[in-house]
């Protein structure tokens, strides 16, 4: 190995091996409940799994019902905004200079179609967000590639996959703006999608080489609580439909449950609500100690008015050396509510420190700190503008003397 390769190996190994894995607990979860029911705290699973199951059902319906190609059949065309058709040598450039005809997924047998996601509120600096959909052959599969094009710099290409494996219909609706796509099962010619009971625009297109039409809809950012879709034929008969995705029942007051048992008091910090969140929405960060096995833990909850609190992220145990809490710095992107403009810092203060100060190029940032019963040292949390690419954290004692300091550069 070269020197750089050795450094890479050592850094990755250091990070990987410091992650504790409780094999017994995982095996128990696997045996008793499966991974989905065992870990219900992840908000996207609550939505994604039933949606994925429904999507798989749709796929089966489509494959069984259709056995014949309907290439270019005009009766499927109900375009409201029918995407952009490309021949293979006209496709937008892929990431890092790859040629337009180099597909990171199986080669297409149909003309690709590019949908523009209405993402003006989610893609900063007037970037573009496009989704390329095409069919690959043997067996016929719908493949999806996503391209995020910032206003400056190279595009980011994500190979979502082909049907069945990673993304026949992908809708992480609990996480924010996204899109819904799939095939229209014949003899249906129209697709209808509702979000929170309201219909949204759906594009239905067919291109040369496509055995079935494709539908596409942009979903609103951060506000999808229920989602349905159905397919109808020219006479309005329903060919296939989804079950209504259950709306999260209102339960605004609910005690949080934690991943590890707290052995200390729980510090509670209010974070800035996400952009576009309804009035009264809250984001709450809990920090607590969970003993030498887990170290200190965080639990970030998002509470929207009239809804059950959703745990957006949890962490435990990554910053313990022996039985000593070792971290002076952690960070959480303020992502759970859809905000792309703030980052929440939180962590454990070193021994002797009572106050934390974050200094960025934009100035000093307010930081909350607390030391609850049973905490060996205090904890802190503060939210800053993500565009501040460098921050210095100072930890001060009760006399205002610097106990420790560290520099953090953004990885955004």
């Amino acid at each position, binding site marked *: 190995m070269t020197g750089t390769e050795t*450094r*890479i*190996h*050592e*850094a*990755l190994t*250091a*990070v*990987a091996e*410091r*992650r504790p*894995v409780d*094999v017994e607990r*995982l*095996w128990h*979860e*696997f045996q008793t409940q499966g*991974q*989905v*029911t*065992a*870990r219900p705290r*992840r908000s*996207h699973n609550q939505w994604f799994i039933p949606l994925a199951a429904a999507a798989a059902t749709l796929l089966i319906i489509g494959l069984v019902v259709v056995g014949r190609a309907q290439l270019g059949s005009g009766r499927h065309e109900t375009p409201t905004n029918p995407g952009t058709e490309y021949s293979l040598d006209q496709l937008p450039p892929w*990431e890092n200079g790859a040629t337009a005809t180099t597909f*990171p997924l199986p080669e297409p047998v149909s003309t690709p179609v590019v949908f523009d996601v209405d993402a003006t509120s*989610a893609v900063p600096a007037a970037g573009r967000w496009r989704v390329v959909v095409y069919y690959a052959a043997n067996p016929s599969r719908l493949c999806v590639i*996503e391209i*995020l094009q910032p206003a400056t710099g190279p595009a*980011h290409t*994500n190979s*979502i*996959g082909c049907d069945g*494996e*990673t*993304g026949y219909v992908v809708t*992480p609706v609990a996480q924010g703006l*996204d899109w819904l796509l799939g095939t229209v099962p014949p003899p249906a010619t129209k697709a209808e999608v509702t979000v929170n009971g309201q219909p949204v625009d759906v594009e239905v297109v067919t291109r040369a080489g496509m055995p079935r039409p494709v539908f596409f809809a942009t979903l609103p950012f951060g506000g999808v609580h229920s989602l349905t879709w159905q397919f109808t034929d020219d006479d309005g008969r329903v060919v296939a439909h989804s079950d209504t995705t259950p709306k999260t029942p209102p339960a605004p007051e609910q005690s949080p449950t934690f991943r590890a048992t707290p052995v200390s008091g729980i510090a509670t910090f209010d974070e800035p609500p996400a952009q576009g969140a309804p009035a009264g929405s809250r984001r709450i960060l809990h920090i607590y100690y969970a003993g030498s096995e887990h170290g200190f833990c965080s639990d970030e909850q998002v509470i929207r008015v009239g809804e059950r609190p959703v745990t957006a992220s949890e*962490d435990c145990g990554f*910053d313990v*050396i022996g039985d*000593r*809490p*070792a*971290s*002076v*710095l*952690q960070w959480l*992107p303020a*992502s759970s509510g*859809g905000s*792309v403009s703030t980052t929440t810092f939180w962590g*454990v203060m*070193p021994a002797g420190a009572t106050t934390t100060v974050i200094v960025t190029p934009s100035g000093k940032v307010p930081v909350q700190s607390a030391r609850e019963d049973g905490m060996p040292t205090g904890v802190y949390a503060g939210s800053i503008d*993500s565009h501040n690419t460098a921050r210095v954290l100072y930890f001060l004692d009760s006399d205002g003397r610097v106990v*420790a*300091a*560290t520099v953090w550069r953004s*990885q*955004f």
Partner: protein
Amino acid sequence: MSGVASRVDDASRAPAQFEAYYRERIAPTVRLAALLGCEDPENAAQEAMVRLHARWPGFATNADATAFLRRIVVNLSRDQWRRSQLRRRKPRYDVAVTATVEDLAVVREEHREVLAGIARLSTRQREAVILRYWQELAEAEIAAAMNTSAGSVKTHLSRAMRSLTQYLEVRR
């Protein structure tokens, strides 16, 4: 939910072998998912194990099963990555600094620099680097995990190393 339960029940065809395999591979799988940037590595690893379990009788060797497992984890991480791109988020490598900043921070600074460089790579380049330099896989194995060709893996690794070397040199 019932689908998951039924798949787990099916595993009783070879429970002892699968349990031994699970116990041996779950930790590396969680760690691979973490390095690839999965928001919930344990959940991703469990999901991969459930999928593997459904096909368990079809694998002739544990090596075949492991190759399949790696591929699932890579796919799951890409799926999460697609979502995380909404937030312009890079993988979060939890590198502790220290309570006594002065001692360990310096040691770990180098790791942090390397990890920051890895986080800046494209998804495919990062996958290739992690599979090559952490899992120490051959190019053919990496290609299988990434569902691509060995030639593409070479290209990804070459570009990644060039990018990383430049990044690290600038920070010297």
